[in-house]
């Protein structure tokens, strides 16, 4: 038991994290980038067009992974918030600081691809259904996290409140999703039934899976790199950071 506790503790120290993570970032970038390239190529060129939607269906290979990952990033921020509230681990707050902007950009990417997918397929850019609207709400939740941290004068003291906000947000996500779903079915014109995912034949599944894994791995690398930046920002006055700069 001591080993795990010790590893958990050491993982918590920014200095250990900074030195240990440079290799990981490069590996995740290469792995993720490769997965995305192969997945996108496969989705754009090799996979057959969908019977009903034709080629615009290929947008799904980018929209679905980014929308799904954006939500996972918010859940991860909530978990990090919980870890900070319970164990007061500085690295948990560093994670939220780094992951929130990345999550927000991913959400915007998902929204943009959702709109561009909707135009040719259903004739309208914006469909007020459960999925698109809850992605929009997710974007506001990310903005909330960043806006609160921005408003707090001393960033190292913002961790407690931002963690609370992340937890409050994550508890509300399912409630918002359900209420928007109830709203959508109440006002949904029968013709556009977005809820039913177009049936995916296996040949289309592979590029989607590859893109999803590629995006996960790549974004993990981006968040790690952003965390390294945040650690440097917070610890630039400390000895070990000055030591690094001297050694170079």
């Amino acid at each position: 038991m001591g080993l795990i506790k010790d590893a958990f503790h050491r993982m918590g120290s920014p200095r250990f994290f900074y030195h240990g993570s440079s290799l990981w970032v490069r590996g995740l970038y290469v792995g993720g980038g490769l997965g995305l390239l192969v997945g996108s190529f496969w989705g754009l060129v090799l996979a057959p067009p969908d019977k009903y939607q034709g080629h615009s269906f290929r947008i799904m290979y980018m929209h679905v992974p980014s929308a799904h990952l954006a939500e996972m990033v918010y859940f991860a921020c909530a978990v990090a918030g919980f870890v900070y509230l319970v164990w007061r681990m500085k690295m948990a707050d560093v994670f939220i600081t780094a992951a929130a902007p990345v999550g927000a950009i991913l959400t915007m990417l998902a929204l943009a691809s959702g709109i561009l997918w909707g135009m040719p397929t259903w004739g309208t850019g914006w469909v007020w259904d459960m999925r698109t609207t809850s992605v929009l709400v997710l974007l506001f939740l990310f903005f909330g996290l960043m806006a609160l941290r921005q408003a707090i004068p001393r960033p190292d003291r913002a961790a407690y409140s931002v963690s609370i906000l992340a937890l409050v947000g994550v508890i509300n996500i399912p409630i918002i999703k359900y209420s928007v779903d109830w709203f959508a079915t109440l006002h949904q014109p029968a013709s556009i039934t977005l809820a039913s995912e177009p049936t995916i034949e296996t040949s289309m599944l592979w590029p989607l899976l590859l893109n999803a894994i590629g995006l996960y791995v790549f974004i993990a690398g981006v968040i790690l790199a952003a965390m390294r930046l945040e650690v440097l920002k917070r610890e630039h006055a400390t000895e070990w950071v000055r030591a690094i700069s001297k050694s170079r």
Partner: protein
Amino acid sequence: MTLIDEFYNWAMMDGHGVYVWSVYVISAVTLVVLGAWPIRAEGRLRARVTNRVDEDSGA
């Protein structure tokens, strides 16, 4: 059908090409910027810390 026509038809994706390509271009640009931004910013920050360290030791 020359190679160019073939490429053209493929790229047009009978009308949907505009949307598909713009999604992939936007995604590519976003992901590249997202990937490069922390690395470059870290480099700049380390440079700033180094100058400050040199100033301190130099002064």
